[in-house]
């Protein structure tokens, strides 16, 4: 298994355990570090705990054991001001979650104005700059209902960026999109990666993970069971589970008997 620690980590998870109120174990001891400007792709079968993991990092689930550090500071345990942490850790969800009662600009400005108490003119200028950057300069006063799924996700991403996060968590942000819209959203994410944004990306877009990630974590049943460079992971997965998983993304005729395709 690849080295779990990296230099200059912005995020450090150590033996993180999580359990849902119904007793289901969401995370069963997860440890890894993320370095500044690193892009980590998290892949694994549905239900293996990828979303749970991201939600724990953002305080939307409470962990039952272990610790999470952001920039060296422990952010788990009692008395954590999650509203402060979450300004530093942005999260985009699979479902389009723009605020439907606000237009695009209103969505972008809500956090900066109400949470960060930024100046309106300054925030507006930043918002328009970001819209320009993701190719939506002319949609500032559109309502979310008037946007395509791809446009909504692009706005959701820059709504996070408006808070100037140190770390971005993306949870299958293209999974609900029509295929022709996936690319425009992934292009935005690839641009962020090129700019040095630190990201934890849960995705089923394997070619995207391969192209953009610095490292791939493979999860199964609430654990990280493989950590590798994209090259290694996609060419020579170390575990049977990973081989089986990757085989599901290839179509090379009817299933073969006995073992995964090579």
């Amino acid at each position, binding site marked *: 298994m690849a080295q779990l620690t990296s230099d200059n980590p912005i995020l450090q998870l150590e033996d993180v355990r999580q359990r849902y109120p119904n007793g289901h174990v969401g995370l069963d001891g997860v440890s890894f570090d993320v370095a500044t400007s690193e892009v980590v792709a998290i892949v694994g079968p549905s239900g293996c705990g990828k979303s749970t993991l991201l939600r724990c990092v953002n305080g939307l689930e409470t962990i039952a054991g272990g610790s999470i550090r952001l920039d060296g500071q422990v952010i788990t345990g009692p008395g954590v001001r999650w*509203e402060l942490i979450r300004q530093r850790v942005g*999260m985009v969800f699979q479902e389009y979650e723009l605020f439907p*009662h606000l237009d695009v600009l209103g969505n972008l400005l809500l956090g900066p104005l*109400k949470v960060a108490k930024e100046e309106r003119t300054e925030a507006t200028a930043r918002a328009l700059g970001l819209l320009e950057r993701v190719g939506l300069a002319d949609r500032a006063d559109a*309502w979310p209902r008037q946007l395509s799924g791809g446009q909504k996700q692009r706005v959701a991403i820059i709504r996070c960026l408006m808070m100037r996060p140190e770390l971005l968590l993306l949870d299958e942000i293209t999974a609900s999109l029509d295929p022709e819209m996936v690319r425009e959203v992934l292009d935005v994410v690839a641009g962020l990666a090129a700019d040095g944004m630190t990201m934890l990306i849960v995705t089923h877009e394997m070619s995207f993970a391969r192209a953009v990630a610095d490292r791939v974590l493979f999860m199964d049943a609430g654990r990280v069971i493989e950590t590798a460079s994209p090259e290694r992971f996609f060419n020579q997965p170390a575990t049977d589970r990973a081989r089986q998983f990757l085989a599901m993304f290839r179509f090379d005729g009817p299933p073969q008997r006995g073992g995964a395709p090579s």
Partner: protein
Amino acid sequence: MDVNTLLDYLPLFAQAAVLTIGIAAMGVACSLVIGLLGAIYLYFRTPVLRQFFAVYIEVSRNTPLVVQLFFLYYALPKLGLVLSSAVCAITGLAFLGGGYMAEAWRSGLEAVPPLQFRSALSLGFKPIAALRHVALPQAMARAAPALTANTVFLIKETSVVSVVALPDLVFVAKDLIGASYNTSEALTLLVLFYLLILLPVALAAAALERKLRHGEFGT
């Protein structure tokens, strides 16, 4: 029907209308606030307060306003609490309306997808700020028809406040009928004045509803 009698009565009705509007406005405003608080405690499942409001909603909605007013005006003084007629009327309306408004707010809040709330949290909003800036505006758009229907209902309910000796529109009408038997004139004015109060409210409510719903639902 005598036009001169109508004109003679006009100032009396106008004065009573001011009182009716005042009582209704206070009652509606209080019930909106009580209802909102109740809905928030129910929404967040706050222990104790949630049970308290659940009981309150049932009591307020399942007792007639006249009975609530009788209680406030005649029973409370026996228990040592004397309230003026106006305070009784406003309290009664707020008590009744609070239950209805709580249900309206609650159904509005519950219709807002939980992910909306989570998205706001993930931007760094505290729960109460997420409620205020994200969940409530959407809840309001969804609850607007029920909230405005309740407002009109409460204004109509003011027609029973004369039982606590308040000189409102109904009181004046009854008074004039008793004193001079000009029944048709008095009742005509009563109907007209209630329409005069309620029609603008209904129109304003419809306009507000359109405005609230525009963003999310289009026109």
